């Protein structure tokens, strides 16, 4: 088992950073494990969500921000709903994702590629264009055949032209400000 040296220096910095980003005070977490027990994604996570909360308490910034778990969380809000300490756990996971994004720590590359395909489509038209997102994702991720098996079935649901809004330049300006920071 890994031994962690808890010093007063490392202990509070990360918890304070998370508090600033999310308004959530992790000192309140007493590790009951309720968040992990209800999380539909525990079986897919490298660290269960309760351990991510513990990493914040113990200042393990590197480990938490490079976990797969923060990317695989779908913000389903089960953890937030059930936390007896009223910590908004899903907001904490989202806050960690925001920090990881800023620091270009992309542990789950396909998820990042999908998010950016989505935001690029949003930037281009002001609304998203589903066909463009999947095409861009398939090209950028290298998984060229993702959902190709749905092809004939999905045809009757897809629209083949984007809905461009008048204010798309205003929307593009907002998105660019965040996407170009990379």
């Amino acid at each position, binding site marked *: 088992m890994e031994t962690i040296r808890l010093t007063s220096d490392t202990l509070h910095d990360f918890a304070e950073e998370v508090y600033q980003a999310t308004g959530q005070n992790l000192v309140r977490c007493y590790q009951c494990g309720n968040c992990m027990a209800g999380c539909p994604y525990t079986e897919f996570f490298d660290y269960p969500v309760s351990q991510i909360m513990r990493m914040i308490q113990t200042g393990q910034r590197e480990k938490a921000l490079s976990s797969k778990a923060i990317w695989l969380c779908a913000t389903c809000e089960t953890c937030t709903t059930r936390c007896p300490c009223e910590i908004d756990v899903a907001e904490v996971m989202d806050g960690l994702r925001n920090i990881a994004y800023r620091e270009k720590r992309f542990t789950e590359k396909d998820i990042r590629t999908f998010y950016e395909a989505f935001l690029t489509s949003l930037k281009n038209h002001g609304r998203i264009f589903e066909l463009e997102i999947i095409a861009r994702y398939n090209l950028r991720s290298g998984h060229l055949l993702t959902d190709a098996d749905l092809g004939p079935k999905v045809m009757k*649901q897809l629209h083949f032209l984007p809905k461009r809004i008048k204010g798309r330049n205003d929307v593009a300006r907002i998105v660019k400000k965040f996407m170009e920071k990379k």
Partner: protein
Amino acid sequence: MIEKEYAYYAGCSLEGTASSYDRSIRVVLKSLGVTLREPEDWSCCGSTPAHAMNHVLAGALAARNLAIVERMETATLTTPCPSCLSAFKKAHDKASKDTAFRDEVNQLLDVPYEGGVKAKSTLQVIYEDVGPDTVASRVTTLLPDLKAACYYGCILSRPPRLAAFDDPENPVSMDRLLAACGVEVCDFAFKTECCGAAFGVPKKDMVLRLTHKVLTMAQDCGANCVVVACPLCQQNLDLRQGQVNRAMGSSFSIPILYFSQVLGLAFGYSPGELGLDKHIVSADALIRSRIPKGTEETVPPAKEKVGKSAAQGTARRSGERTETESTASAAKEA
């Protein structure tokens, strides 16, 4: 009290793969005497990718729309999509409580958001502002073959502080609206389990496993259809049902309907008017029997009719369908 007019934010999905949700919502609300006004030049709410990347980005994309609605002087914004709803509620909540956040967001907007828009899901509008009694009074048609599992998805009633609607663990609004239409509602344990949400494309294996659990539970509780209120749930359960079957070795053929489509059928609209032809798993066999309300006493007992009509439905279908139905009826008998 019925509020007659709402700002109606359909959202991008409802202009694309979920157009049947939009169509059926409009038909049903018109029938209930509710006017929907579309905010002019609305844009995407940002959804999951925006809040994953940056909270200020998510706030600005949502607040652009809230600012448009604010100028409409319509008291309430309604959206059928839980993801859009969540984006609006979170942006409004943060902007109201944190002035630094609001300033940062407003710097990105041409028209600032002042913080005066209340957002409600369209399910909430129908359940709370219109009410099951009014819904029941509009019912002209009974659907004796439907056995519905009401699947709310994860964020329609959660987190409770923000959603401020229904029960976060055991929501009942959809169950009651369907019951008001005379539809049989099953006791479904996975009402708020997550279907895998936006990971259908980048993490398909995960979504297929989660969706398989939801469909299995629906079948185990005796349901022959799943009724949803979220375009992403509908997509994962319906469009990906074939992928689930291939990946998990299952043979589901369970139609996935929007709650507004079930209400629309009960109000006497045709499947085509409600966009049911757009769905992948056909609901034809389940809705073939539609009985005018008030005449049900004169027709043969409902149970016999169910069996007969279901058998007629399967005769035209594949062996897979027959197997699914016999499994469902075996589960029911047990």
